[in-house]
């Protein structure tokens, strides 16, 4: 296994330096393919992203990890566009780990399309250029007299045609061009047209293999009991009863780890099937040393937040103008709170590890596989070059699989048995040992002048930072301020924002939209509160501080992001317009608005929610309107699905999402106590897209942050403003 891995890596290095003919053997381990004469080739693969076989079938290797966001379709569409092939002839496959730079597999921050748009266009154009050159050679004409068209090369003088499949072996002999011409976007035929998911049939017939569906030869199953308190240790385990369960082979224990993943100390039952392991786990009699931090609670945490909110922020994050000169004038203050949240992917965490001697092979879904492999190496003593990783499809991720605690656990367990082991997390494990979206609290203050103009804005964010977990508590700058930092979009002359970290003994991690979701809720609610106080229309009030503001950089460094208030205003206007903002409302009907940018991914979205009040605190959502500007849209149907799904994710958080902690333990243990939105609660969603020629942005995270503030703004318009999520805690109910 070790030898093969190294051979393959060397081989790829070779092929990236050499011509197309060498690359023929790209996917074949070992050197055998190299010995084949090119005319006997099976396929043409000029780079790591695509290959074309002799039947003209195109396979695109998707470097980003699929977890429902549709990269398995959008990314191949980009290749198909430049390659000039029918998308229906394109098959998507997972790019094997090791065939491209490790970090290129990283999947998060809604970056996949942004990052891969140019490289994949280029990859497709390179292949097309080589196929054209091969055809030109065949016809003994200049390549400039040939053109690509729907999987064929056309001789534009004679109108002769050759199929790509017939050219692959000749194309493979040609040098890889250094520069290629990309299409003019006005000639796009694939990009911008809705396509169904590339692996849809497999998904609908049960053939798709998620990590938990993978089986390898001689594989055993493991389920683990973990220390109920983070960073606790194992004292003793009595496994007598557990070992009597038929099918149980071994009970092993393993130590926890510190940063970055904080794997909990655990005891794992290894069995011939999952059920035996689950049954035996219940019979383990374990004594834990919970450590000193075993009495923490969210009840106390929010009291701490409230107390500290009154003091100055520990870290000043953004300052503009001079807040001290204007503070205290016509002041408006409000506090907002949001709980810890769990990702709750439908597929619980799982991972397969096979350790043989000083090497191991892994199978599973990971959003940051390169970091995972590096950390597995550090934590288990297995050398990185001896780890072979096989990436799989994920049944949801939402940031949970950016973390790889479960992979470290699987290797620690597999190190103690001579067969491959699939570690299965039960739903209770998934709910209680997750990487929670940090709990947070906000104090906002605004000042207006005598003409009713907003002249000052102060935002103090308090939270339990993720960086204290991934880097350790000595991190000096653990701010979680996107959406409330230099990118603050409203044109207010005096602004001061800051962050106060509060440590807490529960693991934290990145959840879909991360800080932007955390900070958009208070910002977009508070803007509405100010408008109400000033008797201004919330739409006009926002637009007055957005529409005429030019794009601005959020910092001085070369990579600093650009904020675009005009695009934030445009989506807001569109959402308000489509929701009928200017029209007369029916009795007891109210509309709430919120807008924002997902600045990293160059995407902008606004929600308008229309509700009908049925009782003082009981409502029905009549409809939700989403307006989205993500620049050039690759797959409109994919975007639509993300916006519909993002709305559900956001509404779940607004209505009922909450993780509570008592005695440093998570109180929720599954979907009965951590409820997700259900079918019967789904209101109609309308999605509208801004027609844009800007570079394509990312859409996985832009669709949820404005849902809760839009809903709360509608409820406030009806007379009762919730300032704490989920709103269920403030006595609201819905049908």
């Amino acid at each position: 296994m070790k030898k093969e891995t190294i051979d393959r890596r060397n081989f790829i290095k070779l092929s990236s330096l050499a011509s197309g003919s060498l690359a023929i053997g790209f996917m074949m381990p070992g050197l055998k393919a190299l010995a084949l004469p090119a005319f006997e080739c099976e396929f043409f693969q000029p780079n790591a992203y695509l290959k074309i076989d002799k039947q003209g079938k195109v396979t695109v290797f998707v470097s980003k990890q699929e977890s429902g966001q549709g990269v398995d379709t959008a990314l191949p569409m980009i290749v198909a566009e430049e390659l000039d092939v029918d998308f229906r002839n394109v098959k998507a496959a997972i790019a094997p780990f090791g065939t491209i730079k490790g970090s290129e597999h990283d999947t998060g921050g809604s970056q996949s399309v942004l990052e891969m748009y140019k490289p994949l266009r280029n990859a497709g154009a390179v292949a097309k250029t080589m196929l054209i050159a091969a055809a030109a050679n065949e016809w003994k004409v200049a390549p400039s007299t040939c053109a690509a068209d729907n999987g064929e090369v056309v001789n534009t003088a004679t109108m002769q045609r050759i199929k790509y499949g017939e050219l692959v072996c000749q194309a493979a002999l040609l040098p890889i061009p250094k520069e290629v011409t990309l299409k003019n976007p006005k000639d796009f035929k694939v990009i911008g047209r809705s396509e169904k998911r590339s692996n849809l049939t497999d998904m609908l017939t049960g053939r798709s293999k998620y990590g938990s569906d993978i089986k390898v030869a001689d594989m055993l199953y493991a389920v683990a009991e973990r220390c109920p308190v983070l960073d606790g240790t194992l004292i003793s385990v009595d496994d007598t009863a557990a070992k009597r369960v038929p099918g149980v082979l071994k009970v092993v224990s393993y130590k926890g780890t510190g940063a970055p993943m904080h794997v909990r100390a655990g005891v794992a039952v290894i069995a011939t099937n999952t059920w035996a392991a689950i049954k035996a786990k219940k019979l383990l009699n374990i004594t834990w040393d919970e450590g000193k931090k075993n009495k923490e609670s969210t009840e106390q945490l929010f009291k701490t937040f409230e107390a500290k909110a009154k003091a100055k922020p520990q870290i000043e994050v953004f300052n503009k103008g001079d807040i001290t000169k204007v503070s205290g004038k016509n002041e408006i203050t409000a506090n907002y709170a949001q709980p810890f949240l769990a990702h709750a992917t439908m597929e619980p965490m799982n991972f397969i590890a096979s350790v043989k001697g000083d090497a191991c092979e892994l199978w599973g879904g990971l959003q940051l596989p390169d970091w995972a492999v590096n950390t597995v190496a550090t934590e288990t003593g297995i050398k990185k070059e001896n780890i072979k990783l096989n990436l799989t499809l994920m049944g949801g991720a939402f940031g949970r699989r950016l973390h790889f605690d479960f992979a470290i656990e699987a290797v620690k367990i597999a190190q103690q048995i001579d067969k491959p082991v699939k570690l299965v997390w039960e739903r209770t494990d998934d709910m209680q040992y997750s990487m929670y979206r940090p709990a947070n609290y906000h104090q906002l203050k605004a000042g207006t002048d005598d003409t009713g103009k907003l002249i000052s804005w102060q935002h103090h964010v308090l939270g339990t930072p993720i960086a204290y977990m991934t880097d350790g508590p000595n991190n000096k700058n653990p701010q979680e301020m996107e959406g409330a930092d230099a990118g603050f979009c409203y044109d207010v002359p005096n602004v001061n924002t800051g962050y106060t970290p509060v440590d807490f003994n529960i693991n934290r991690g990145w959840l879909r939209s991360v800080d932007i979701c955390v900070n958009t809720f208070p910002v977009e609610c508070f803007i509405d509160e100010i408008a109400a106080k000033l008797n201004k229309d919330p739409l006009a009030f926002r637009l007055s501080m957005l529409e005429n503001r030019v794009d601005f950089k959020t910092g001085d460094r070369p990579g600093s992001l650009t904020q675009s208030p005009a695009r934030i205003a445009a989506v807001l206007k569109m959402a308000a317009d489509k929701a009928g903002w200017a029209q007369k409302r029916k009795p007891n009907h109210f509309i709430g608005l919120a807008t924002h940018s997902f600045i990293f991914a160059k995407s902008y979205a606004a929600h308008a929610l229309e509700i009908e009040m049925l009782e003082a605190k009981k409502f029905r959502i009549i409809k939700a309107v989403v307006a989205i500007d993500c620049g050039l849209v690759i797959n409109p149907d994919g975007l639509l699905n993300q916006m519909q799904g993002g709305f559900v994710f956001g509404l779940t958080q607004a209505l009922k999402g909450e993780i509570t902690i008592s005695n440093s333990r998570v109180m929720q243990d599954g979907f009965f106590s951590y409820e997700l939105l259900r079918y019967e609660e789904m209101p109609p969603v309308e999605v509208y897209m801004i027609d844009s020629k800007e570079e394509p942005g990312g859409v996985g995270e832009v669709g949820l942050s404005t849902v809760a503030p839009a809903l709360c703004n509608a409820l406030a318009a009806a007379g009762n403003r919730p300032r704490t999520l989920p709103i269920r805690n403030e006595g609201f109910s819905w049908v």
Partner: protein
Amino acid sequence: MPGFSLDVNNKKYTVEAEADMPLLWVLRDLLDLTGTKYGCGVASCGSCTVIMDGNAIYSCQRSVGSCVNKKIITIEGLSDDGSHPVQKAWQQAGVPQCGYCQPGQMMTAAALLGKNKRPSDEVISAEMSNNLCRCGTYQRIKEAIHIAIEDINK
């Protein structure tokens, strides 16, 4: 271990398992029918839904011992090629995101439409609320069910 005769997707299997092993794990671990998914193990999410004697059931809640002499259909047996009206409708509506919950969603829908060719929206809502989707594809599920209803009533 005791042996049990099962009828899954119109095929006869004999499995050796503890009598209390849930059908879910029999399908996944012993019969390699991994289209049926594990989501919670406590009847809260519907990912493991299969059809038994025409009814949608949570396979995590049925011990293998209680499945003898029953006709069990899993997603792999709904059709050979994705041609069941529910699968076709799911295809047309482009329902899935991650897709993990969709076998369970489709089995619930197929069982419902197998018994009632024109269910009311209230009945659909009550049935489909047994299945969770974290990606939030409910709007498309609704659309797909209505496509399937049209199809089977043609």
